[in-house]
């Protein structure tokens, strides 16, 4: 079995964000980039299949600038077999659909049984790429998955809903997007971190994939950002010390709710 895990380099949530005012993209040099946490759940799920099914190969696929190789090595440190990077100045500013076009072009050249990825990236948070990718590759998609069973070609998944799940089944090859409830990702071992440095990394640009640069990136995206403005930070309001009995705190909250016409 061959599994490809699309992964994304994202700015650390805790870091202050800055926007490039020329095109309203995130200034990725302004904050420390990390591997998208949601994609770690995808990698973990792929590794569990690899450990169970002999001969399984797991490959990471990452679209991003050359400097994203640090993130790719992080992904490889979980024990993956290799990685493909798509890097090209023209992909900067791609929206979800343009990103899916680039990834689909890279995947069209690959053999695989499963694509497993996080349900969203922690920066853009659109959740759109897995379904778009499936559409462009003409594959079934199992998205927002919190439980996955792989039995040969047969796939059974539980899709998370607000009050439970929907069980769905299909056949590989397919696209799978996972939510946090699916597993508890491992930490990379020292051996894995050392081995990651020597794993094969294939680097491709748009020309190698036969993608017209005009169809991706800022210029080729159907959506356009007109303006981004920081929101004024919230101010702290009243702070009440409870008297130890709970009654003072309870009364303060109830009074405030009544004042706000919420009671």
């Amino acid at each position, binding site marked *: 079995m061959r599994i490809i895990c699309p992964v994304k380099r994202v700015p650390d949530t805790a870091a202050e964000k800055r926007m490039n005012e020329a095109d309203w993209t995130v200034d990725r040099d302004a904050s420390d980039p990390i591997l998208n946490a949601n994609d770690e759940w995808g990698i973990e799920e792929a590794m569990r299949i690899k450990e169970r099914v002999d001969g399984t190969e797991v490959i990471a696929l990452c679209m991003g600038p050359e400097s994203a190789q640090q993130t790719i090595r992080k992904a490889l440190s979980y024990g993956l077999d290799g990685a493909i990077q798509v890097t090209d100045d023209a992909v900067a500013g791609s929206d979800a659909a343009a990103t899916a076009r680039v990834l689909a072009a890279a995947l069209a050249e690959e053999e695989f049984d499963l694509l497993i990825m996080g349900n969203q990236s922690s920066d853009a948070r659109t959740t759109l790429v897995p379904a778009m990718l499936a559409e462009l590759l003409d594959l079934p998609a199992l*998205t*927002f998955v919190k439980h996955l069973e792989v039995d040969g070609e047969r796939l059974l998944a539980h899709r998370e809903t*607000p009050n439970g799940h*929907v069980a769905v089944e299909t056949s590989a090859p397919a696209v799978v997007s996972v939510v*946090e409830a699916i597993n508890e990702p491992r930490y990379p071992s020292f051996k894995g971190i050392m081995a990651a440095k020597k794993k094969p990394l294939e680097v491709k640009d748009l020309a190698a994939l036969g993608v017209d640069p005009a169809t991706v990136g800022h210029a080729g*995206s159907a959506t356009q950002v007109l303006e981004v403005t920081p929101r004024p930070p919230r101010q702290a309001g009243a*702070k009440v010390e409870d008297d130890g009995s709970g009654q003072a705190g*309870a009364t303060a909250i109830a009074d405030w709710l009544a004042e706000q016409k919420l009671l």
Partner: protein
Amino acid sequence: MTDILVLTDHDGAAPKKVATQLLTAARGLADDAAALLLGEGAQGAAEKVGAYGAATAYVCDAPEVDAHDTEPKTAALLAALEASGASVVLYPAEPFASDVVARAAARVGGGVIGDVSDLAREGEGIVATKQIFGGDMTSRCTVRPGLPAFLGVKPNAFAASEVGGSPADVVPLDVAFDERATRVRVVEVVEESSGGRPEMTEASMIVTGGRGLGDAEGFALIEELADALGAAVGASRAATDAGWYPHQHQIGQTGKTVAPQLYLGAGVSGAIQHRAGMQTSQRIIAINKDPEAPIFSIADLGVVGDLYKVIPPLIEEVRKRAS
């Protein structure tokens, strides 16, 4: 010609609350909005969209729609776009509808903007406003002129209002479901009891429990307070990771983003990953033993105290004043 098509969720008898909000929003953006209702019972709810200003209701209640996942709905949406001539689709910004729309947009080369909190017509196009980076920034964006636009609207972004229009003209869609539309089969729908509480992303009030609860049993108290207020129950990542409450209730970067009228956090410290999921709430109350907890820096009202001492009398106060 119809300008806007609204993906209208329904319960078999009437459009759901979020759908009525979307229909109201569509009315404010275009003279002629149509609705699309899918699945079992779609016929029964279709005429009722007229009350919200939609003159036409496209309907597809073929059994394939519910028996298979996502793709039959995408096929029906594409058929409705074709039949109506609409160039803009409004849909509820929730995961499963986003999937349906993502596939349609990839097929027709359209642009998708999700989590929209406001919409305005500006010239030929529609400008969408959304919060990004956990509410740290506000983005105004649009879909390039001439391309189909798919706009996902957050629950409660618009207040629903009826216009007393006549029943909508119901148009059945004839959709051909090929093999690709039926390749993912729905095996089972499993719903755990919601305890009669509202859904978290649609609720006007949310009571959230965090690490400070100490154990799973603590959520009984959170639920009791939520029920007294008529609120939904949320949980921090620490609480869902510990297995104290189901993951689908998690608020924050790896869970849901919520913006209710009232967020009340008990034993929630307010790490940045949690704040990214709730800091655009209209009002925030925090109860925490630690006076230095970061959540106090964004709370409109903070109570420094033991939640197990504060919440029981608070439940009494709420019940007393509500009756």
